[in-house]
């Protein structure tokens, strides 16, 4: 008879997370060991820029412009940087879309994989941490000068003793910062932060008290201001009628604002 425990460690199923599963199956790219920094003369990566989020009376509003750039070139003017991860979670991205979209995909599958295998929804802390780990795993690329991603994560916490919307932003190494009012990242974010600070402190009412149309007005004005000084931010393309993507996270899930609705607010209070 075999000694008890000989095969035990391997036999007990570990609660493996989805990225670990992908690595075991060789389906997730690894950071190359040390190829040295990327030569900028040889390669210019695509960047997506300027996202913002703030809490208002109806939940969390998350908005992003539509521009993707590589150096001085506009690559795409209809990029979607506000990505739905599950029924109550949004990841908005500034940085390199190639990496960010892949992260969003991993994240989306991670949450579903957890729910399906563990038969319960992943906690908000677990979700926030999952994105943090992806960012840290990506840091090797960042140090080589490619693939930097600085996301915002918005979700709704039902399990807390004070249920409500939650908002986080990250740095490129994966540190997460929970914010109570607003967050903005990307090249156009300094201007946006200024506006959100100003509105929150000296505006007609604090951001948390805004109605939806008022919140949309603030978001559009902020992105328009960012685009004024930052060529990498698309703002609102008036001739092409390309409007930012705006989504709201609330108790009922995620709602995407219709383009006509955004256009109407834009015409009334921004243009």
């Amino acid at each position, binding site marked *: 008879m075999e000694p008890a425990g000989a095969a035990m460690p391997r036999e007990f*199923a570990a609660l493996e997370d989805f990225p670990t*599963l992908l690595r075991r199956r060789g389906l997730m790219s690894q950071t190359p060991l040390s190829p040295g920094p990327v030569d900028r003369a040889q390669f210019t990566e695509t960047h997506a820029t300027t996202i913002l989020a703030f809490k208002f009376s109806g939940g969390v509003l998350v908005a992003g412009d539509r521009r993707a750039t590589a150096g001085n070139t506009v690559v795409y003017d209809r990029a979607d940087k506000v990505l739905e991860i599950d029924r109550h979670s949004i990841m908005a991205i500034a940085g390199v879309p190639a990496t960010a979209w892949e992260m969003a995909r991993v994240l989306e599958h991670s949450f*579903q994989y957890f729910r399906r295998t563990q038969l319960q929804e992943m906690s908000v802390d677990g979700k926030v941490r999952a994105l943090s780990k992806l960012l840290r795993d990506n840091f090797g690329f960042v140090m080589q000068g490619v693939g930097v991603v600085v996301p915002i994560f918005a979700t709704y916490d039902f399990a807390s003793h004070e249920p409500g919307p939650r908002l986080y932003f990250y740095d490129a190494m994966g540190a997460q910062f929970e914010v109570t009012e607003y967050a903005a990242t990307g090249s156009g974010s300094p201007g946006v932060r200024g506006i959100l600070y100003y509105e929150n402190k000296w505006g007609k009412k604090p951001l948390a008290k805004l109605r939806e149309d008022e919140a949309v007005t603030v978001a559009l004005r902020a992105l328009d201001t960012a685009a004024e000084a930052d060529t990498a931010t698309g703002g609102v393309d008036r001739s092409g009628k390309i409007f930012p993507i705006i989504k709201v996270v609330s108790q009922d899930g995620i709602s995407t604002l219709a383009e006509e609705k955004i256009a109407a607010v834009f015409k009334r209070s921004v243009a």
Partner: protein
Amino acid sequence: MIEEPYRWVEAIANRREYIETQLVSGSPIVALGCEEGILFLTVGSGRQKIFEIYDRIAMGAIGHPGDIERLRMAAIELASTEGFTRSAADVSLRRLAYYSLSPVMKTAFEQVYGAPYLARLLFAEVGATQAQDLFLRVEYDGAITSNGAPTAVQLDAFAVISGSRDATAAVESYLRDQHKPGATLVHGIDAALNGWVVAQLAGDTTNTKEPPTDAQIAAARAERVRAGGIEGAILERSDARAIRYRMLSESEIGAATGA
């Protein structure tokens, strides 16, 4: 000992008998196509028996919880990696069952020195229309029964697993009679629950070949089914959301069963 072929056949037969005995007390599970989607229903024995596998795939299982868990994990892992590397549309129940699960279960069953999977599985994949719904049953020995080959017409808009062949046959014959494609979820829940009762009655009255009457079914249902004991889930047909699986709430089931 089992180098001799007939010893092996004998060992396999013993093992089949052993597994069938182990499965016989399993509470039947009914999957049934209706207008709103595919309904899974069983009456609870205390632990969850209906599970989400992927966006459009669900599973019901009877057997040993440890074996069910291993198969469930394998199915989720395979579907998730496929859906991640390609797309959710490329995840196919047919391939999952035939290509991945069946060979492994067959091997485990036939290697008489190892343990077989003590489980009987019921899978369904919801289609855009009811004719595209796929139902598969996977046995402990890897055998698969499907509701229709890809080219053939769909045979049944339902599938059943239970502890015994007789009980399964009784439910199938009942549902073939009572459940018509195009039925609504409310009717589906009612029919599935009656189907569960029919399986229970088939277990009781092995001496009579007569199907139970409606009155017998109603009486047995009142006696054996408590509203809270019903476990139900649906794979929704509507493509409004990517993830179609949803557990039915007690009030939804109560409304359909009048309990």
